[in-house]
């Protein structure tokens, strides 16, 4: 009797779960930390930056400086289609690199932060 009940529950759950989707989205290229280690403040020039990292995604100008911005977005999206209810979650995080160049096109500063290594397939539409 207990076995029959378990089979019935599994069957019911199987019928209830009408489908699921697990998808991943990426925008841009991952920023390789190996390439960043090759950049030396005060010596590396604009041309070398472009060779190492490619063309910037955005160029910001101001305060006698040029800032090359590189970004990378990673999104993980699980979705569950139940018989009575559908839940879809989309978790996005970004990496950003800013290379500050002086008037002569030499690297003055680098600001880099990485978040995409913590993106998860979390299916939780509620909560903060």
């Amino acid at each position, binding site marked *: 009797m207990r076995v029959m009940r378990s089979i019935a529950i599994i069957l019911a759950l199987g019928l209830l779960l009408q489908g699921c989707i697990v998808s991943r989205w990426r925008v841009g290229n991952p920023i390789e930390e190996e390439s960043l280690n090759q950049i030396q403040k005060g010596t590396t020039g604009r041309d070398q930056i472009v060779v190492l990292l490619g063309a910037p995604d955005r160029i*910001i*100008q*101001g*305060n006698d*400086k040029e*800032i090359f*911005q590189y970004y990378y977005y990673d999104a993980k999206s699980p979705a569950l289609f139940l*018989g*009575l*209810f*559908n*839940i*879809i*979650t*989309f*978790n*996005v*995080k*970004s*990496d*950003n*690199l*800013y290379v*500050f160049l002086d008037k002569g096109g030499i690297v003055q*500063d*680098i*600001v*880099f*932060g*990485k*978040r995409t290594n*913590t993106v998860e397939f979390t299916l*939780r*539409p509620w909560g*903060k």
Partner: protein
Amino acid sequence: MKPWGWCHAVVALVLCLTISSCSVRRVNFNEPIAGDALTFIKTGETTLQEVVDRLGPPEEIVTTTGQFIAEFKWSTTRSSSLDFGHVFKIVSPVTPSMTLSGTGINVERFLVICDDRLIVRSYAFGKVDEHAFFEFWPF
């Protein structure tokens, strides 16, 4: 089956069909930054890279005279919908779409103002939006 039994069964069926196309969606963009996570920032000493090491990178840096403003952004989008068209499955081979849907987007910001040497001079949170919650009624 008694008439009341039939009535309950029909009501249950209609309710099931009504909510059978209920969806909730959520989009999380970056982790929220809490005010109590900023105690390490000492204006005039902390560098932008130190802030980035703790909080993650800013989404944007803009320049003003002699200053750089780093904008950290995160958001939560909640969306829900209810398709009443499925009720017509009982009487019609075609299922029309009669959807009520609501979406709310909370975008939050944290701004860090740095000098020319990328030393933090001041910081502030943007005004918080509070309209992202699950809501089916669009009117």
